[in-house]
């Protein structure tokens, strides 16, 4: 379980994340939504110890992320940030194999290679496994990075805007794959999402942030309501139930 206690991030005078206390459910998909600058990505980065917090603490399965050794945490929690810049030329398989590093310290066994192949297959990249990342489209690259994080085989997987740069088909297939991984492998996913309807259709739990604070949280049907969405986005959004899903129509 991931637990944030009074977590804040301050840049000079501005509070980006303002005393967030949050207990994320175990298993399933939790989505963090909210307008730009709400502090979603910052919170995710602090929960995964990639960014130090100004105050407060975060526990992952009871381990404090600021004091627990990095290699211990790397076996429990994986994070993928938005921009992933590489200096070296890597193939998809080489990149995904990095996901085994916490378990092998760079000396993979046959079992690890199996893990790698499974992650590649899971993200639908088998045909591209030997391609260099800089010769692929942004969406394919994004899938390769997600495959690396899945290959890390942690209980908690944190993804910052995993749908960034994906077209409709691949966005849907990404969400389906994450849903599948959550249901069959028992992993807990925490996603920062911008698309309300993807959050609504695929999440078990939604956390809505605004001005550095958690404004609302609950099941999709609790969040996908005109009054709640207006408070989050300052926008009149009507919500319709279509085929059992709550869909926001915010285009006009």
């Amino acid at each position, binding site marked *: 379980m991931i637990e944030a206690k009074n977590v804040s991030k301050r840049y000079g005078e501005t509070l980006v994340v303002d005393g967030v206390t949050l207990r994320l459910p175990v298993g399933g998909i939790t989505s963090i939504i909210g307008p730009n600058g709400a502090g979603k990505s910052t919170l995710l980065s602090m929960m995964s110890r*990639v960014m130090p917090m100004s105050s407060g603490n975060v526990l992952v399965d009871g381990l404090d992320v600021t004091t627990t050794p990095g290699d211990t945490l790397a076996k429990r929690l994986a994070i993928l940030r938005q921009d992933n810049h590489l*200096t070296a030329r890597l193939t998809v398989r080489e990149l995904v194999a990095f996901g085994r590093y916490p378990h092998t310290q760079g000396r993979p066994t046959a079992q690890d290679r199996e893990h790698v192949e499974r992650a590649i297959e899971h993200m639908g990249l088998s045909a591209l496994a030997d391609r260099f990342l800089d*010769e692929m489209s942004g969406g394919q690259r994004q899938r390769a990075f997600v495959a690396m994080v899945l290959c890390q085989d942690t209980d908690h997987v944190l993804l910052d805007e995993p749908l960034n740069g994906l077209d409709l088909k691949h966005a849907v297939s990404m969400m389906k794959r994450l849903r599948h991984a959550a249901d069959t492998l028992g992993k807990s996913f925490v996603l920062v999402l911008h698309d309300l309807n993807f959050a609504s259709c695929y999440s078990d739990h939604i956390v809505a942030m605004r001005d550095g604070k958690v404004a609302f949280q609950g099941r999709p049907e609790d969040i996908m309501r005109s009054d709640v969405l207006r408070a989050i986005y300052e926008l009149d959004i009507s919500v319709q139930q279509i085929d059992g899903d709550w869909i926001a129509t915010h285009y006009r």
Partner: protein
Amino acid sequence: MSASAPSVSPLRPLLGLGCVAVAFMALFMLVDVSGPWDFVLPFRGKKVATALLVGYAVAVSTVLFQTVTGNRVLTPAIMGFDYLYVLIQTCLVFFLGSTTVAGLDPRVLFGAEVIIMVAFSAMLHGWLFGMARGNVHLLLLTGVVMGVLFRSLSSFVQRVIEPNEFIFLQDRFFASFNDPEHELLLLSAALTLGVSVLGLRLLRACDVLVLGREAAINLGVDYPRTVSWVLALVAILVAVSTALVGPVTFLGLLVANLAYAVMRTYKHAFVIPAAALIAAIALVAGQLILERVFRLDTNPRVIIEFVGGAVFIAMLMRKATR
């Protein structure tokens, strides 16, 4: 650029490079001997040893530095490392006088200089990690400013120094491959060996650093610790190469990028030996051509720096147009 994976084992190009390096070394040792062998061989052997050591130090320090900074256009020189060494030497001569400096035990002197350089890198790095939270760009910017400072300070001191002392200094910095001090060479070799043994343990963590800071932290690498270790090793290696032959700015850039191109892998276990071999080839072959073909007894550094500088500009232009 081919789209297929590097199916050839990286060992093969490495072996090829090794053969070329050995061939050049043999050629250098054996060609055109016109004197007693027991004089020529040790005399030339010392030159080859210097070239190997300098090549290794420059190549390894550059590759590690580029990994840590995530940038393949940079060399440790940009952090002001080599000019710090020049500044230390200049200040020594200025304050103590050339006779005192020349009288000092070179091992003690060199040891002290290495310690100062590592302390500098640790200080710069520790201070910046506190301030900039591991922001490598800020680290580099500070390095550039420091480099200019060291360079200007040393040239200022060199200007006000007595002419005789200046000549003594110049002699030190432009110590070529022709007359390396025997003891310095041994000490450098020992130091480089020590650094390499320490560095072996960081090799796999360095592979992960290629993914960038956040991904490295995610994969459980102790990022600040690894980076400070790597920077300390880089400082020692730069001290070794600068002590032996003076600042060599572009050789590292040249050999590191050639090594990436030849090896086509991110793995340091392959890239580092390749870069070191390429550097050895460049230095030995350069010296050979200069001595035997052009009959000029100058320093091959000049030519390597010229070629390296041209490559540097080409790389910058390519990045700019991309």
